[in-house]
């Protein structure tokens, strides 16, 4: 799966409260949530965003609350993927579970600026910065995670597991 888009760049510790503020958590409809995506850290984000664009950030992206509304809002806003130096662990699980592509790659973050155009191959983890003509390699997913991603997220994976009636592992 190839994603191509321009970079929107942020700092460290981008928390779930600024990705989707709790005042909007009285609904769970992804399209409704998407209307407020990144609102408290960058009120112009949605105006600049084009489908497939890429959020880039320093360390600990998605820290704070367990709200799945955060990756849901990013996905429904049509962000192509999030590339960060590291992710907070609950956000990391949530994103993969709902099929929101995310990649860890410190070199790509250091080697890219806001507005650069990137091409990302999720299956290989290869990140090409077309603007700067540089290539980066993201940390590949473990096999276990690839299976889950191939199934399209945790729910389909679990549905198949239950349908197969096989042992749990």
């Amino acid at each position, binding site marked *: 799966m190839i994603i191509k888009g321009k970079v929107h760049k942020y700092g460290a510790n981008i928390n779930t*409260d600024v990705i989707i503020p709790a005042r909007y*958590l009285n609904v*769970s409809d992804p399209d409704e949530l998407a209307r407020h995506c990144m609102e408290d*850290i960058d009120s112009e984000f949605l105006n600049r965003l084009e489908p497939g664009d890429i959020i880039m950030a320093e360390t600990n992206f998605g820290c704070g609350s367990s709200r*799945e509304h955060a*990756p849901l809002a990013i996905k429904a806003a049509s962000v192509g993927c999030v590339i960060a130096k590291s992710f907070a*662990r609950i956000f990391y699980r949530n994103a993969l579970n709902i099929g929101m592509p995310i990649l860890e790659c410190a070199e790509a973050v250091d080697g890219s600026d806001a507005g650069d155009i990137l091409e990302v191959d999720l299956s290989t983890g290869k990140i090409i910065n077309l603007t700067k003509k540089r290539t980066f390699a993201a940390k590949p997913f473990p096999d276990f995670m690839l299976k889950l991603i191939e199934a399209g997220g945790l729910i389909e994976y679990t549905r198949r597991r*239950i349908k197969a009636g096989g042992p749990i592992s």
Partner: protein
Amino acid sequence: MTLVEKILAAHCGKKELSPGDLINVRVDLVLANDITAPISIKEFQKIGVDKVFDPQKVVMVPDHFVPNKDIASAEQAKMMREFALSQGLVYFEVGEMGIEHVILPEKGLVLPGDVVIGADSHTCTYGALGAFATGMGSTDIAAAMATGDIWMKVPPTIKFIFHGKMSKWVGGKDLILYTIGDIGVDGALYSAMEFTGDAIADLTMDDRLTMANMAIEAGGKAGIFCVDDKIEDYVKSRAIRPYNIYKPDPNTQYAQVIEYDASTIEPQVAFPHLPSNTRPISQVGNVEIDQVVIGSCTNGRINDMIIAAKLLQKRRVKKNVRCIIIPGSQQVYLEALRNGLIEAFIEAGAVVSTPTCGPCLGGYMGILAAGERCVSTTNRNFVGRMGSTESEVYLAGPAVATASAIMGRIAGPEEIR
């Protein structure tokens, strides 16, 4: 093996585990609340099973926006209620409910040696009971509601040893804020934090619950304590089922050991906009405030109420400062009422609310306007957390929060004469 590895091994049928192992773990309890349950329920319904794996092991607590703050949150609470009742889950209606992480230990639903997952990041609170407990998202919870198990990676354990005796007015909140200030908001990313040492042995259960609660604020997967007499005394009279006590092996290798001298730790304040932005109370300077919140899953327990009442007794909240006190459960509320604490609060000019997460996450019951400052016993002070993106939240324990309410600026309890 570490305590966490012992508990996880027992829940996945393995004799040995190491950090980094991917395992499928049987869970003893699955939790969701009025914000996270609606997504879990929608996802659960796609899996293709009619019933949860065990209705006695799935708990749903309306606490974030309940009593309903608006029509949309009423709809979410209703959806959760209908699902919980139709599935026969463990469910607490308004009148029984409290903040999830206050009532689950209180009601003996979480026990030593358990594996608990909850669609709330502060699920790590239950480590204070010697359980392995961690927060996850709604979809993980949906899958676990169907199967009774969940995949996870065995975390490395960082051991924190607190030596010495704490000063008066220093509590669990100060120790954990000090720790986060030292290691940073991702200082324990993906790791379990095990708390031990003389100062920890002296801590009340309420203080330990506060510490485990904020492990997530250092990026931790869990915060955990080894079971001692205090934990056993706490759970003995409450436990609704048998439980197992695990201990780390002697000479266990930890990923890291960090030692502190608790006797030198002052009451702490975390400045905006990160919990790691801490200063000892002596270094705070003159910070005038508009509001104080005492409550939440971090500090809404009876000992927190007692500390607040001790300072507020026969004193007044500073003119034009709003002091909002929120007991974390009906039981805490009732105990505070019977012991005259509620009377002391109201006489001092504070307001007392029914249990709710309310202002902590900027839901309701104390939202801040632009330019306003709040000292809060809650757990996060991110931009906009309690309201306007131009407001400020300062995190502290109940002693500093109460002293600040009296003084109208951030103040230590020693300043109250």
